[in-house]
């Protein structure tokens, strides 16, 4: 094996004052002569994959990294091409990006804003990465997105579900393919109403951080619009592992639905605890008590074991989808790694391809050119049906999957079944929707 990894330095910015004091002016590189940060000069281009490799989301990060490696293979014309064959845009030739071979560097976000920015900075400053992508939480996505805006590189968000990523904290250099809290609420509410009726009393347990707040708000407002009543909301610390003291008050209330605005380990534990306390066997107000998990992650759901059975939630993508794009992706991912990809892997793979395609169409790596190419871009064949990258907030609009924990899983990957594919019209909102108000895209930044 001889995969090369040439690191190539990038230049953040040339400061006149700092430069003035230095000797040997002839050796000073005329930084930024291409007019943007880390303009690739050789025969290769470097992408930065910034995923959690340690901490609670390390497995999700590992899956993202697998997807990126697959994407790089496909971009460089190796392997079976995956979604390149089904992607509606045919700009990509399988010869790298703009003829340059795709190289990559990796970093560990540790799912901490600080560490994620440090590793993104090192990829930009040391390795000359032209684009940063990845991540498995909204806090990190927002922090890294702001960094990329400042440094003048493109950020293609990984798994981030908070409204804020393309709401209050949106940035011109940042793009999100993943869906968001609002879309989860909008897609779930009709399904919940159809299955559980419109006369329901909901009790929310919400993780006490930004993503939790936006998800609670989204689910509340869309279920209340259907006629549900919210009888209680309690914030739970992120570090909580035993949720019993939050579950027992639910038993005492007259709620007949429990909404768990939790993700990852929190979701696994709160759901396990809720089932343990017999919530699912309860009868309240003459109805069966129900539990809802607005955002499902199949990888994490595995940790909750049998407890997910029959529980509704939403997801960005699932490997059992039968469209051509999904089938092609599952085929090439499964062949390479031996198991089906997660939704995190899917969104990351798609983001890498979308970026490459935008560069190809723009004919330039310059961030502002890429932004222009992605804004308002409509595409298909990437697993979620026809999709729009909206210019106003850099959010993808596509169908949303409402899923349910499967009663009889046939394998350890077969945990969710798709209940409904909510059409994109139903989850689209105005750019100035109150849940997304505040903040501004600003203008794109080419950096140097």
């Amino acid at each position: 094996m001889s995969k090369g990894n040439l690191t190539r330095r990038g230049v953040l910015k040339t400061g006149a004052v700092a430069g003035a004091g230095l000797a040997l002016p002839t050796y000073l590189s005329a930084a930024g002569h291409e007019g943007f940060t880390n303009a690739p000069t050789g025969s290769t281009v470097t992408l930065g994959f910034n995923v959690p490799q340690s901490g609670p989301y390390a497995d999700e990060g590992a899956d993202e990294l697998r997807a990126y490696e697959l994407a790089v293979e496909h971009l460089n014309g190796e392997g079976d091409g995956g979604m390149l064959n089904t992607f509606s845009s045919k700009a990509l030739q399988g010869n790298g990006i703009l003829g340059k071979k795709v190289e990559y560097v990796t970093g560990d976000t540790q799912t901490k804003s600080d560490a994620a920015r440090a590793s993104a900075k090192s990829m930009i400053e040391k390795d000359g990465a032209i684009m940063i992508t990845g991540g498995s939480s909204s806090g990190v996505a927002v922090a890294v997105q702001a960094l990329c805006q400042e440094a003048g590189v493109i950020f293609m968000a990984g798994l981030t579900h908070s409204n804020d990523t393309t709401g209050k904290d949106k940035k011109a250099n940042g793009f999100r393919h993943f869906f968001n809290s609002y879309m989860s609420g909008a897609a779930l509410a009709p399904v919940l109403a159809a299955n559980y009726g419109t006369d329901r009393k909901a009790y929310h347990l919400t993780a006490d951080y930004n993503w939790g707040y936006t998800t609670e708000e989204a689910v509340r407002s869309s279920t209340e619009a259907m006629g549900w009543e919210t009888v209680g909301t309690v914030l739970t610390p992120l570090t909580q592992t035993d949720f019993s003291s939050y579950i027992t008050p639910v038993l005492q209330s007259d709620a007949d639905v429990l909404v768990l605005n939790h993700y990852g380990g929190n979701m696994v534990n709160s759901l396990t605890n809720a089932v343990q306390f017999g919530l699912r066997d309860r009868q309240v107000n003459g109805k069966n008590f129900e539990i809802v998990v607005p955002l499902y992650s199949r990888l994490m759901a595995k940790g909750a074991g049998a407890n997910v059975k029959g529980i509704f939630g939403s997801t960005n993508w699932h490997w059992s989808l039968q469209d051509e794009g999904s089938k092609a992706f599952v085929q090439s991912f499964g062949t390479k790694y031996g198991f089906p990809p997660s939704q995190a892997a899917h969104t990351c793979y798609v983001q890498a391809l979308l970026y490459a395609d935008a560069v190809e169409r723009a004919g330039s790596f310059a961030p502002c050119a890429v932004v222009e190419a992605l804004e308002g871009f409509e595409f298909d064949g990437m697993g979620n049906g026809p999709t729009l990258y909206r210019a106003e907030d850099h959010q993808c609009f596509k169908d949303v999957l409402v899923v349910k924990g499967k009663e009889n899983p046939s394998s350890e990957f077969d945990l969710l079944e798709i209940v409904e594919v909510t059409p994109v019209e139903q989850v689209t909102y105005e750019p100035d929707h109150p849940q997304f108000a505040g903040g501004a895209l600003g203008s794109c930044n080419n950096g140097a």
Partner: protein
Amino acid sequence: MFGLDKKDGSLLLIVTALVIFAPFLLNPFPEGSALAQFNAGYPDLMQRFVIFGIFAIGFNILFGLTGYLSFGHAAFLGVGSYAAMWMFKLFGMNVLPALALSMIMSALFAVVIGYVSLRRSGIYFSILTLAFAMMSYALAYSVLATDMDGPTQQGLLQKGLTGGETGLQLTLQDPRILGAQTTADGNIPVPTLFGLEMRSATELVLGDWVFTFSAGYYFSAVVMLIAFYLSIRIFRSPFGMVLRSIKSNQQRLTYTGMNPRPYMLAAFVISGMYAGLAGGLMAAMDPLAGPERMFWTASGEVVLMTILGGVGTLIGPVLGAGAIKYMENIISKINSDILHSWFAFLPDGLEDFIVAIIYPFIGKGWHLTLGIIFMLVVIFLPGGLVQGGQKLAALFRRKKQEDTKSATTEPAE
């Protein structure tokens, strides 16, 4: 020199030289070579080296001299960062006022936390400081991050005082008194020193080598040198000697007519201000203040840096900080791909075998390597890296100098 004796003076000179030439020293490998992966001479990491150096130097003033083990020092780092960010948001983008407020705010916090915690000693003191830091973390992460303007408003406190898990960031709407809200091209302004942008950098290309000189790094480096110099002065002062006597025998000190409590509090506040300064610098180099900076692991990190480098020694904490940050930023970035490229010259089977052996220790396994290094250092070098350096030096010199060694590198307690 500067009121230091010859030994301290030459230490300061050496550190100054190392810091000035760090962009060269940390980039020993030419670009494109397999070993370039180990280069650490890029601005962000160099800044982190000196900033965490400041943090550890300050921590050592408390822990190294008095022996009081604070397990909540990261709280002051976080407070410093938030203070600097608010200064950027409300006042102006110049780093000096921001750093001043960082130090003032962290000093205030340190006075309160120190006054309460210093009523206890030993592990009870450690747990009190830990409790305060964890409360600060929880408040910054959640409670102070809730929208204080009301849901429809979009004011300054839209994400609370601290910005929650993401951290406090600059926005395009910050009402800065001095300076513009946005730059000419519609972006958020960056921290400067009287117009010199902290992120600006210039490059020197010498053959295959590329060296980066970053304004932010040199600014932080100057601050670090001042901090280091002051810490030498404190170590060699009557105040420093009293602090050491507290660690040695607090009872004797009280019966000698001194009140240990204000000495402890002064040391606590000084070291809290060092932490606040480091936090402010972090925000100045990278304008974001995240709550994880206050989590107990961050407090634990500075303890580990200090012990790893050598408790109570002047330079040890800086070395420890450098070692841990190097692991975190360099080792964690080596992936299997890079490994394969290193050993590509070997026959395929052997290559895969060697990669398989090394792989668990690098990249996502960097924590494992860190843990092993902690254990090895503490088992074989009780005096930390400084002792390792001394052993090496002694090996080269082949001379015994027991007396001076024992006088300068007493390990903790």
